[in-house]
């Protein structure tokens, strides 16, 4: 029951949890050869291109790598601003 007591006194997370979280990130970047800084750059460029065509909320845009088994997926969540006039 050591773990239960640890939780009660809010000790730092145990090392296995840290290992799992760190590995999740490391594996995503190893598999895609896309570093966090490149991902950031990609995000900026995507926002530029998209905002040329639609009005978006650039500050709220998120681009993340998702893992599905051994497949990696790039997920972009880009909120659009309310259009000034709707077309029907």
């Amino acid at each position, binding site marked *: 029951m050591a773990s239960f007591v640890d939780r009660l006194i809010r000790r730092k997370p145990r090392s296995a949890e840290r290992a799992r979280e760190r590995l999740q990130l490391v594996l995503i970047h190893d598999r895609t050869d896309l570093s966090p800084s490149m991902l950031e750059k990609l995000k900026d460029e995507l926002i530029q291109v998209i905002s040329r065509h639609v009005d978006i909320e650039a500050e709220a845009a998120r681009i993340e790598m998702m893992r599905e088994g*051994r497949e990696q997926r790039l997920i972009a969540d880009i909120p659009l601003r309310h259009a000034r006039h709707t077309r029907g």
Partner: protein
Amino acid sequence: MNAKVITITSGKGGVGKTTATANLGAALASEGKQVVCIDADIGLRNLDVVLGLENRIVYDLVDVIEGRCRLSQALIRFKKIPTLYLIAAAQTRDKSAVSPSDMVRLCDELRPEHDWILIDSPAGIERGFRNAIAPADYVIVITNPEVSAVRDADRIIGLIEAEEKGPARLIINRVNSEMVRRGEMITPDDVTDLLAIELIGIIPEDEQVIVSTNRGNPVVLDGKSKAGLAFRNVAQRLQGNKVPFLELDESKGIFGRISKLIRPGGN
């Protein structure tokens, strides 16, 4: 007979490739199957000492490939299990002495006379690794529940897929159930989830592995060893038999489940 060729690899060194090769070979052979273990780690051979055959090597892998002996002369019989053979790696040469097509040719020659051919791959992702996987019908990746070993395993799994030898199967070696219980070692479930390939073995950490290796005996011959039992179970799974995974530790059942409920986001 038409042998299946299995290559055991890992990326990182020292995680238990040679031990796994020797023990899976011994487990399959002790059921009466004709088994050849090939040490593909040229220049750093070790499968011979793990099997206690170091004094019986006359010809090695490179001698066969370069035609200095017949194939049968390089097959060293393990006396305690008469259907288990070793082809040793050359110790004084380097990996460039063998090519992937040499390995394919060698295994094709061995296939008709055997049930299983197990290849012990060198660590790394270079020539030696490519030699070892070239003839494989399928590949087993072995890892330990540690960040560096899991990371390298992931890399090697990607390379195996790129070489169209995938999907690889996974053995997690040296699992310390006490550390897992305390939350200080990644669980086999987590490793399998991260690597996302089929799990075929969880081998508990077991002093008997070192004790048997000291004597040049595979640990599967020790009826009391937990690691030995786990390796015998992997051998069963390789033959298509469904065998449940060992409970790592009797207390893990209930405590493991409780701690998972308590740990936020812990599943």
